[in-house]
């Protein structure tokens, strides 16, 4: 209960600071929309020159992309820890966090909340809706709950990988650009997994399971039966990777020695 109330207090605080720079917030929405359209335009232009991508149609690709945007937006809104190393370790902010009576990871996540990213999820839903109308997809009443489950699972996969990476800072406080690298790898998960060679497919499924954020769960809604078992693994993979991240975090915190002032 205490955690819930802390959460809402942070949320209110967040709104206030955001509304200070109102014009900037507007431009930020626009730039988010542009970020989402870059990939969409890529798909559209490419399919102007080909009709099938390894047996996947244009609308199926668009559907996968739309789905991907939802867990990605959730991740961006609540697990925005790209600059964890710089902000908390190099500048010594972590010391302050550790004196608070809530779990340190929870605290860091609340401080870095970026609720405006959720707009990306809405864009994703629209893109998905449009694609499924053109594909004449049929949905059942339980698909809604599966969608929620898959989206949350995808978010946890993302969160798990990126929190695990952030914990590296507890052991080594050197700057590194692992985060952008991982971001590039995560892009692989948006495209039909069967276009890659076997090594990459294995990595994207079991080691850096980004395929569970895009293509696998979407395959269920697209009725691609051969991928169903992978689709249903999505929430399980999410929980496993998130648990690993929390374990690493708790271990790292014990190892942490203040670096700032």
């Amino acid at each position, binding site marked *: 209960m205490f955690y819930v109330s802390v959460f809402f207090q942070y949320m209110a605080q967040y709104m206030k600071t955001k509304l200070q720079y109102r*014009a900037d917030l507007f*431009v930020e929405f626009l730039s988010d929309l542009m970020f989402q359209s870059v990939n969409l335009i890529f798909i559209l232009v*490419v399919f102007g020159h080909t009709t099938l991508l390894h047996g996947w149609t244009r609308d199926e690709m668009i559907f996968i992309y739309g789905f991907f945007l939802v867990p990605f937006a959730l991740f961006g809104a609540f697990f925005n820890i790209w600059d964890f190393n710089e902000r908390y370790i190099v500048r010594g902010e972590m010391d302050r966090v550790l004196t608070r009576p809530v779990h340190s990871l929870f605290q860091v996540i609340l401080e870095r909340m970026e609720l405006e990213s959720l707009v990306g999820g809405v864009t994703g839903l629209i893109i998905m809706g449009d694609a499924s109308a053109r594909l004449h997809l049929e949905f059942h009443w339980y698909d809604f709950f599966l969608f929620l489950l898959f989206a949350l699972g995808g978010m946890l996969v993302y969160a798990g990988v990126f929190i695990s990476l952030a914990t590296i800072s507890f052991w080594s406080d050197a700057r590194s650009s692992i985060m952008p690298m991982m971001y590039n790898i995560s892009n692989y998960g948006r495209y039909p997994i069967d276009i890659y060679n076997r090594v*990459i497919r294995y990595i994207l499924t079991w080691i850096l399971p980004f395929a569970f954020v895009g293509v696998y769960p979407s395959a269920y809604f697209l009725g691609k039966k051969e991928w169903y078992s992978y689709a249903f693994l999505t929430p399980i993979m999410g929980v496993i990777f998130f648990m690993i991240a929390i374990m690493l975090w708790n271990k790292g915190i014990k190892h942490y020695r203040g670096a700032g002032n």
Partner: protein
Amino acid sequence: MDKYLEMIRIRFLMMLAYRTNYYTGILIYCINIGAYYFLWSAIYSGKSAIQGMSIEQMTTYVAVSWMARAFYFNNIDREIAMEIKEGKVAVELIRPYSYLGMKTMQGLGEGVFRLFFLSFPGVVITSLLFPLHFSSDIRTWGYFALSIMLSFVINSQLNLLAGVVTFFTLNNEGLLRAKRFVIDLFSGLILPISFYPHWAQEVMKYFPFQAISYIPSMIFTESFHGKAVIDGLLFQLMWSIILLLPLQLLWKAAKKRLVVQGG
């Protein structure tokens, strides 16, 4: 002149200090190029050429675009925004050099560093992994070198413009991000301009963006021949001169409006 050369050198050495950054940097570029390689192979499957480009040319195009980006890409727009926010810009303005010129030189220092420590090793590694085609014609390399220099100039001018806008808006994180996406998309980095529908190509002719990535990459892959190469270079030259004007005007207005928020 000496002080500007010194700026390039200092920035170069600064980059050298963060060593893990360039190991991961090389990896990032290889991974990126790898992803696009598989994607394009799937797109090409069964076709020998799309828009006059073979799969080999396409892979080379992707590789060269990303490697060239290492050279022309820099964060001087963010640095300017940061210096304005933190109030450091006031000190910079009283120093005996041109602020914008100095920022450009810092960007160049970064570019030269990435060219030698990131692009070259990156190209060597990717050429071992994926089928790339390098021209044996020395002229192609010469035109390419000239072309990426102009790419650097145009990209830096756009960065400076975006950075100077911070003088008026004070907080323009969103604008800087939007600028980055526009450049990625319309410069031909992720898609050659010739792949876009006709009407879009027509529109893009009136913007400087394709001068940043599309032209040098098309020159390198020899998808441009003869007159097209010269036209491309002239297009770049024209824009690098045109952009000087808004930059000067904006900079003049900005200095008058300087608000120091702190520092």
